[in-house]
């Protein structure tokens, strides 16, 4: 393709996007923080006088804090949909605990002799609170707000998963695309942001006790100012695309759509985990799905025909370290048992059972192997250990469960699984760093994400399934000593998808139809 870009070049080239993401990031952080302070501070003050309530409130806030951030964002979707609203709500919940707890600790930590003498001189409750308790507790409260700020800058990167934007778009896009510059373009500004906001707050915290009384005015003003940079994303446009960070940065993804089809629709970045549901709920109209995804069936979506072939074939096959194949010759035949067994519709059905019917991948894998009479009781062997990895989606879970059963049933080898390795880059690095021995990979991904061939090489092979497979098999063997075994059969290629009802009513069948429709309506 092109020679390696430097980080600076990347950032300069993407400066518009970077600025936009940074502003969104600051906005998400500050708005959620402002709400957290507006609610957490009075709540902390209130519980400081009520021991029982304190226990309950701090307990609940503590539990909220322990929910993994991505899970919390996930919980928000059924309630608040996608976009900035659920992101801000989740960030707010994270910021709540440090704010409440430090307010509570700060106020209960004020020397009782001081508050008593305040009351003894004739101050009423409100006067004691505003002239004594709050100013004296302010350093502790500010420490809590600082903690909350740093947490929120970090967690806000995850907002990219639910189409709320922010620097996470680059970070997760970069991870998905194996593009270090892109990761750093998101990660470095995020880190700087955390440091700068923390530093600004530390300046306020260091002011002496007397000036502390003015903090009550300065702090909200500062937060509102920072928040005001952020404008909520515009209301729903006519046709909105929701694409994964990975899709947004790929030649065979959004870039190709723009280049080859000249498709130009407004887009948001969204996580694969919530994309289908968001399309179903009409939050977005066009998504970048996978053609065998079970949710296609579950949410009644249709794929648009790739009439100008920008999406290369994505045949799944086990990608194995050659060293292991040499060491355990019995491994390859066991893995090859699955070859040719699963076509697109079977895979979609299996995925549907896991994604939508919520059956366990183990059970789905077992049922399938039983059905095909490939299942054998595990031999509980001890000849060696094979480590299986998978990316985080149902299909991969199903496949590695099948491989586990096949290996353990047909060989003397033991299997351990490392599931939930974020994306292609993480799986691939785990493989080359000898953390895992194999994982199911797709030819198109291997070609475009890992090998990154030149444009001429690409044009020669992209249309043909066999050429792509042979190319990646050879290059992986030469460059990484990794072996692509026989493909399983199905082709899980990228596809654009729409709700069936909408596609039918607008008579959109191909991506070209979509382009024609969106051009007509944007004028």
């Amino acid at each position, binding site marked *: 393709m092109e020679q390696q870009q430097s980080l600076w070049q990347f950032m300069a080239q993407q400066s518009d996007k970077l600025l936009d993401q940074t502003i969104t990031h600051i906005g998400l952080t500050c708005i959620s923080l402002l709400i957290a302070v507006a609610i957490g501070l009075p709540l902390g003050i209130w519980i400081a006088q009520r021991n029982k309530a304190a226990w309950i409130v701090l307990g609940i806030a503590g539990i909220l804090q322990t929910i993994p951030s991505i899970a919390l964002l996930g919980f928000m979707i059924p309630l608040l949909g996608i976009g900035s609203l659920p992101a801000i709500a989740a960030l707010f919940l994270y910021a709540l605990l440090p704010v409440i707890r430090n307010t509570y600790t700060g106020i209960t930590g004020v*020397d009782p*002799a*001081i508050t*008593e*003498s*305040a*009351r*003894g*001189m*004739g*101050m*009423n409750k409100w*006067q004691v609170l505003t*002239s*004594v308790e709050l*100013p*004296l507790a302010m350093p502790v409260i500010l420490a809590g707000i600082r903690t909350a700020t740093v947490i929120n800058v970090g967690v806000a990167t995850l907002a990219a998963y639910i189409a709320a934007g922010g620097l996470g778009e680059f970070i997760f896009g970069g991870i998905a695309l194996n593009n270090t510059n892109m990761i750093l373009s998101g990660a470095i500004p995020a880190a700087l942001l955390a440091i700068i906001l923390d530093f600004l707050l530390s300046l306020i915290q260091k002011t002496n*006790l*007397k000036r*502390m*009384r003015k903090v009550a005015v300065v702090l909200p003003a500062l937060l509102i100012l920072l928040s005001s940079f952020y404008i909520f994303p515009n209301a729903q446009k006519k046709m909105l695309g929701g694409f994964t960070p990975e899709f947004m940065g790929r030649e065979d993804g959004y870039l190709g759509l723009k280049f080859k089809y000249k498709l130009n629709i407004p887009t948001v970045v969204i996580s694969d985990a919530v994309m289908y549901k968001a399309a179903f709920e009409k939050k977005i109209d066009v998504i970048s799905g996978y053609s065998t995804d079970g949710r296609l069936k579950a949410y009644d979506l249709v794929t648009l025909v790739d009439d100008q072939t920008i999406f290369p074939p994505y045949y799944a096959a086990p990608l194995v370290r050659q060293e292991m194949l040499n060491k355990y010759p019995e491994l390859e035949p066991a893995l090859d048992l699955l070859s040719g067994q699963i076509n697109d519709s079977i895979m979609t059905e299996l995925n549907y059972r896991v994604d939508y019917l919520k059956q366990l991948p183990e059970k789905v894998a077992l049922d399938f192997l039983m059905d095909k009479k490939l299942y054998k009781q595990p031999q509980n062997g001890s000849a060696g250990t094979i480590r299986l990895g998978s990316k985080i989606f149902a299909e991969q879970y199903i496949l590695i469960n099948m491989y586990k059963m096949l290996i353990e049933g047909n060989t003397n080898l033991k299997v351990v699984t490392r599931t939930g390795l974020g994306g292609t880059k993480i799986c691939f690095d785990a493989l080359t760093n000898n953390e895992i021995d194999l994982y199911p990979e797709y030819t198109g991904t291997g070609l475009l994400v890992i090998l990154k061939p030149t444009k001429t090489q690409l044009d020669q092979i992209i249309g043909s399934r066999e050429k792509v497979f042979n190319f990646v098999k050879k290059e992986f063997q030469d460059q990484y000593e990794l072996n692509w075994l026989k493909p399983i059969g199905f082709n899980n290629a990228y596809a654009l998808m729409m709700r069936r009802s909408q596609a039918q009513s607008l008579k959109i069948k191909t991506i070209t139809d979509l382009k024609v429709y969106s051009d007509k309506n944007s004028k």
Partner: protein
Amino acid sequence: MILAKNISKIFNNIPAVNDISFEVKESHTMVLLGTSGCGKTTTLKMINRLIEASSGKIFINGKDIFSDKPEILRRNIGYVSQNNGLFPHFTVAENIAIVPKLLKWDQQKIIKRTKDLLHQLKLPAQEYANKYPDQLSGGQKQRIALARALVSDPPVLLMDEPFGALDPITRAGIRKEFLELPELKRKTVLLVTHDVQEAFELGDEICLMDKGSIIQTGTSEELIFKPANDFVRNFFSHQRLQLELSSLKLKSVWEELPDANFSEKAEMNSNYSFWEAMEILSEKKLEHLGVVNENDQTRKTVSLAVIQAAYLKIKQNI
């Protein structure tokens, strides 16, 4: 004047103060004396309603304290809390101005009054008004706490172990200043302490408490020479001689003192106790010293021998 009638305080069914009554006369100082947990601080705090009495009636200058909101009541009662209770984030001047601001005095009046008070307490406003409590010594903090309680010239002053946090030497010095402050002489004071010596020096009357009840009320002289029971007697058994000498005032034996030699300067007045007189004599290494009677300005002489004779005579008469 403070009048407490049959007041009790019950915490979780346990009486902390059990049906006590007392009266502090106009311009007098009454000391609530007792060991920790005897209910003396609870009693004090019931007077300004920091603790609400469970039962009983309290009047200040004839007015029922429950007739107003507690905040309003407290603004007219000077209060010095344990460990001074100064606001660390307020300057000396701001600390003193708290009550005047609550009473909505105008700024000029507050400044003038603060300056006067600081002057009286030997802490020049120029130097100290803008300092923070952390920059002051323990004794200085205590003076500011006192100034804060006195600033609005309340008729009644409540003090909870006001010198408790100070070392013995600073403590004695501040007590002396305290006694000599003209502002304080007009005040009705209720003071809590566990320090017997302090009670004897400061109290016109002493109220000895134990387990929530008053065991005996009287002057220091009455308590030590006419103890109501063994508890009172035992309470003062430690340092008895010093306490006896502290309880006796020169004015009580005025007639028996030899007339003064008028070339002598009068360094004491008749309110001094035997103990104080002896201390001064021994400190200055003098045989005898002049004393002036505050009431009629007559003068007498004291010497260790005279004091000893007077003391022995009193002991014999009991």
